[in-house]
């Protein structure tokens, strides 16, 4: 069930996409992971048959793919894991969905997520928490926990998530799969329901680097409908090589600090040495502003979120409570429609942007963001990639942190600086701690996804962590 794209392609050619897709649905239907919010079985099988009836062209022809439920899909519910979007069916496809359809992919459903991508555990979903395939009592990470769990659980070979402060890399790390956060601007955000626009990117999940690159090739590219989209033509799959000799790897000690689990640190350092043994050069780098990243990140993300989520007022779509006057109605809709974590972030973001606090919080956070960016620019003068833990610890238990928002925010300490800087980053499995996967984060220069994909691919070719599968699911 964990077949990669190439193997699936062969099976599709030998039998059919319809058969392959049906098998995945069988598995999903008996799943305990709660990875999906909406399944599109009928339309997926229809699509599979359609593809079977034609020549199988397109780089993902007939391949099933799962989509995080904050990416707009024409004709299919898009809930963002929130009650407030009850019944909302987008009348248009996100750019990435158009691309996937163009490549022949078969969309099998929409995956579970933290409400509006606000969370690190997929526990804030209105549709209930998703589970970690390695231990059903543990979280899959978040906010794209459904996508990562589905891939790790063999319920879909590839999936899309979105990463605002680690939401692809965190669940990739917790679920033992590969997840990429592209450079800001490489993938169009058109159709991605905004949480924090200046930070987020849509990113691919797969069980291996080659498939991540293949999916990335499909979704990357310029889109005139996203003003932050960048014009660049690349074929990332063709850049993959089992070769790191001469690659300069930077190790920022700030990312191995207090709060980092011993086994995680060990696994990541071992990973780094594996690459060194394969010919890479190591260097220590200083990233002195890392400790301010988390606060800056949350202020910026919440500020943008407070504005982005203002549109959910029940007037045009989504949840509608009893009608009253305007103020009462939209207040009731928002009170009933948003969960606690979303409300918390809207309130904090509103506060941070308010007159009298705007300079103290929001503007200061922007200044810190500039300093963080400069940290990265300086580091990348001397090294080609940076390697750190993705998460400071492996997957925690369901309910363990959900009532302690601060400790949940702290979990993002190693992922958020990357979003502030806008650089690309990939998480690859690099070890296990008491049966739970550990992720290694490889960070690159702006637009140098090729370098991190190559490093990740080389690591994968020379280790077997990515081949291990969770038992008992």
């Amino acid at each position, binding site marked *: 069930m964990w077949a990669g794209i190439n193997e699936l392609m062969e099976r599709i050619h030998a039998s059919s996409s319809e058969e392959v897709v049906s098998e995945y649905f069988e598995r999903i239907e008996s799943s305990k992971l709660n990875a999906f919010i909406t399944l599109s079985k009928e339309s997926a099988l229809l699509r599979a048959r359609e593809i079977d009836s034609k020549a199988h062209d397109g780089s993902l022809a007939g391949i099933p793919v799962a989509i995080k439920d*904050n*990416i*707009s899909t024409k004709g299919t519910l*898009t809930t*963002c894991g929130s009650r407030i*979007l009850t019944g*909302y069916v*987008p*009348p*248009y496809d*996100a750019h990435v969905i158009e691309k996937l359809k163009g490549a022949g992919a078969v969309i099998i459903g929409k995956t579970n997520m933290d409400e509006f991508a606000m969370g690190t555990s997929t526990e804030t979903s209105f549709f209930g928490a998703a589970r970690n395939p390695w231990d059903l009592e543990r979280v899959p990470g978040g906010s794209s926990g459904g996508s990562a769990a589905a891939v790790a659980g063999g319920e879909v070979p590839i999936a899309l998530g979105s990463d605002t402060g680690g939401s692809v890399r965190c669940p990739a790390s917790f679920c033992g799969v590969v997840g990429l956060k592209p450079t800001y601007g490489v993938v169009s*955000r*058109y*159709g*991605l*329901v*905004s949480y*924090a*626009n*200046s930070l987020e990117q849509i990113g691919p999940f797969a069980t291996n680097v080659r498939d991540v690159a293949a999916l990335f090739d499909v979704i990357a590219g310029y889109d*005139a*409908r*996203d*003003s*932050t989209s960048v014009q660049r033509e690349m074929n990332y799959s063709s850049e993959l090589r089992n070769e790191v000799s001469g690659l300069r790897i930077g190790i920022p000690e700030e990312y191995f600090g207090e709060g980092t689990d011993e086994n995680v640190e060990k696994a990541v350092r071992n990973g780094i040495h594996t690459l060194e043994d394969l010919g890479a050069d190591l260097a220590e780098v200083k990233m002195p502003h890392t400790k301010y990243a988390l606060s800056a990140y949350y202020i910026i993300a919440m*500020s*943008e979120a*407070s*504005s982005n*989520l*203002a*549109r*959910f*007022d029940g*007037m*045009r*779509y989504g949840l509608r409570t009893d009608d009253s006057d*305007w103020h009462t109605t*939209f207040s009731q809709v928002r009170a009933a429609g948003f969960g606690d974590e979303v409300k918390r972030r809207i309130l904090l973001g*509103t506060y941070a*942007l*308010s*007159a009298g606090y*705007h300079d103290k919080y*929001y503007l200061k956070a922007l200044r810190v963001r500039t300093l963080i960016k400069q940290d990265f620019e300086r580091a990348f003068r001397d090294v080609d990639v940076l390697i750190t833990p993705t998460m400071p610890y492996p997957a925690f238990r369901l309910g363990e942190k959900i009532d302690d928002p601060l400790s949940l925010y702290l979990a993002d300490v190693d992922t958020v600086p990357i979003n502030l800087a806008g650089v690309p980053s990939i998480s690859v499995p690099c070890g296990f701690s008491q049966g739970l996967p550990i992720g290694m984060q490889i960070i690159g220069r702006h637009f140098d996804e090729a370098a991190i994909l190559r490093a990740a691919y080389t690591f994968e070719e020379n280790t077997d962590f990515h081949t291990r599968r969770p038992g008992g699911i």
Partner: protein
Amino acid sequence: MYENPDGVMIGLEVHVQLNKLKTKIFCGCATDYHKDPPNSHVCPVCLGLPGSLPVINKKAVEAAIKVGLALNCRIEEYTQFYRKNYYYPDLPKGFQISQYDFPIASKGQIIIEGEDGELIVRITRAHLEEDPGRLVHEGTIDRSKYTLIDYNRSGMALLEIVSDPDLRSPKEARRYLDKLRNILEYLDVFDGDLEGALRVDANISIMGGQRAEIKNISSHKGAERALLFEIVRQKNVVRRGGVVVQETRHFDEAREITLSMRTKEEAHDYRYFPEPDLMPLKVSGWAPEIKETLPELPDARRMRFIKQYGITDDQAKSLTGELVWADYYEQVLKIYENEYGEKLDPKFAAAWINDYLKGEMNYRGSTLTYAVGKVSHHLIWHEYTVAILGLLKHEKITDDNAVIIFRNLLDSPRGGSDWRPVKKAADSAENYVMRILEEKGLLKVEGDIVETAAFEAINENPQAVADYKAGKEKALNSLVGAVMKKTKGGADARKVREILLVKLG
């Protein structure tokens, strides 16, 4: 010197819809929604659907720069969009994309005719933003059981032009608005006749007191009325020993009064921050090229009219005060020259076009744009005017005939439907006018017909003849009148008088 006895200070924020753009400011929706059903010109972007993103319409930025340059503004090197956050059902995203720091244009000026001669009104800034949708109620807003929302207007490009508080009276405010509209029409960015094309917020204080901001003013006349009311209100507050408080007031157009909406304490905190979905735009490089495309503006055109055509300052001001009249005047001169191979006396043309025709239209509450029916009948009107002026010039018709034809044109539905459609290619406008005059028996009458009419008039009015011969000069007038009646106004009254004098010895 205007003394401004009440120490009135007025600053205006004018929201101009750049409705000549083909598409909205952040999406590709067409702007010609005015005759279409509600919510038919919408897309995910202007409906603010989740996941949609704005893309700046470059033409809107160009239009804004054009206006900025025409208002003598500085065009900033960079311009940036901000989010203005507030909740209202006509605002589908819960925020309006507007500008804050780094508006597109700033520090300009408009010269108007003030209370005591030329007045320079400083322009603080001009910035781009998106128009919200429109709320529709059944009957009045107070009585309606529901509110409907039409998002066709949502995302129309608005330019907000903010003035310094340099205006000293409601009259000056109105003149400022007239001048601004005049300039905007010259720039071809704005059709002021469309619904919601121009909306005004007015800030006004008296005697150095706190200012009130009056919202919801939708016409030049409304601005003048609202400000007149507001001055009286503020004066009454002071007279009763009170203090004018800083507040936002709503103009009730029907009752011509202003009503308190909210005080300073209740003022919105809009939580402005840079729109993350739009990159800062470097526009300094655009300005020089756009400057090349600026048309001749009203003041320059007025000066040229006076100099080139020798018409009066009042005529020049009146003609150039509306683009359509200035164009019409010059086009008639040009078409005339092409048609007759000789120049039309521009003073003669100004007397007819400005002093007569414009007055006729104003009297009818009609505008030239309306009378000429926008585009398709435009040239026909020009041709008729040229034909009529030509016939006059060559003394083939009388002034009275000309007035009758013009009035007929104006009073026929939509500027002369019974004249227009029968015009054939083979038939020149001149022939056509002549034929109509003939059909109506209005043709200029000369020679024997006038002689005969004079003869008859003398025979039929012995009393008048007797009175005249007895020395009553006025009696001649009734004889002239009788001849004119017989010739149905087609005779030249001056010539009739001469003929009668000869006949009466």
